[in-house]
């Protein structure tokens, strides 16, 4: 009985950690996007190209691994 409780407890702890990590990751992924758009960065290449065509301006495209 004790062993079952221990296993269940461990499983619950692992599940909670996984949920917490997944939530933190989702917040982090959305975070940089929100921050980028706040300063006028486009995140959709097609939208940026259309904007460049409409305004006659060149595009500056930054490629960067997400930290």
């Amino acid at each position: 009985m004790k062993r079952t409780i221990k296993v269940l407890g461990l499983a619950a702890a692992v599940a909670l950690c996984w949920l917490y990590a997944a939530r933190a990751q989702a917040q982090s992924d959305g975070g940089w996007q929100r921050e980028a758009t706040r300063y006028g960065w486009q995140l959709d290449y097609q939208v940026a190209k259309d904007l460049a065509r409409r305004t006659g301006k060149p595009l500056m495209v930054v490629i960067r691994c997400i930290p």
Partner: protein
Amino acid sequence: MRLAQIDRSDLNVFDFDYDLTFMVFFLNADEQVYARYGGRIAESPDERQSLAGLRYTMQSVLAAHRSEDKQFAPPQQARPFYIRDIAPRRAAGGGCIHCHQVKEFMDNKLKADGAWSLDQVFRYPPPENLGLKLEIDRGNVVEQVVADSPAARVGMQPGDVLRSLNDVPIHSFGDAQFALDRAPKSGSAPIIWQRDEQSISKRIELPEAWRRSDISWRSSVLYLAPFARLYGFDLTDEEKLSLGLSPNRLAFRHEDRVHDQAKAAGIKPGDIILGVDDRELEMRAFDLSAYVRCNYVKGEVLTVNIIRNGEPLRMKMTLLP
């Protein structure tokens, strides 16, 4: 705009040194590329970048964009190219593809096609390989020209503005690396620079092995980085002079423990190591490992120049990873 997923990008447009983690492209709405900003050398990931340098490139691109005679970096091929064309998504574990993995997938494809060669290792050579150092804050302005280098022999001087290299317009250090990546492994390449109001057009020499540079920072080819595995302590200036060597010359006495790789070459404890491949190297014992990593790859055979009991010997050593 910011591109965060290289696997969805046309690599014929976004063609760059995929071992980098940061690169900026300047292009028009028709996806014609004016310039690139980025690039690095082995010593530091950001030594060749500055905010002033980025601003300078942006201004240079705006001037090119307004110009009647627009110059673009030529693409490698006429049609789009995506990483999914050569590597299924599951090959990268199903998740995000890192830029260096793009290079690995490309190399794997070349290997599968029997088209891979050592030239694929030494990609995006810096202009320093031709004796040309560009300013950091003004990426197409020559800061320094190394004496007796290809750049010096073609007549370049500090203050010159590099306009075109190997038919690629140059606005930045990143452009110069891109231009040199497309240059042949030997021969020459067209170069145009501006001095005051004068435009000078010549061909710069590309000597044998000019592309080679330190690959130790490149994730995509780390498996090819070799180790010299020669260890010891520098001779004193007096000891060097007694052997007829200048104090700056590499000369060290091998320590008692000899690695199997060196042992297989015939190196013994106490041997005096003078260099490799008959080159007179000016460095310390500690620097030899980096020198070998910069100039050789796994599997190559080099000659170790040694002195044993006062006699000069040449030992062949196969480099292992």
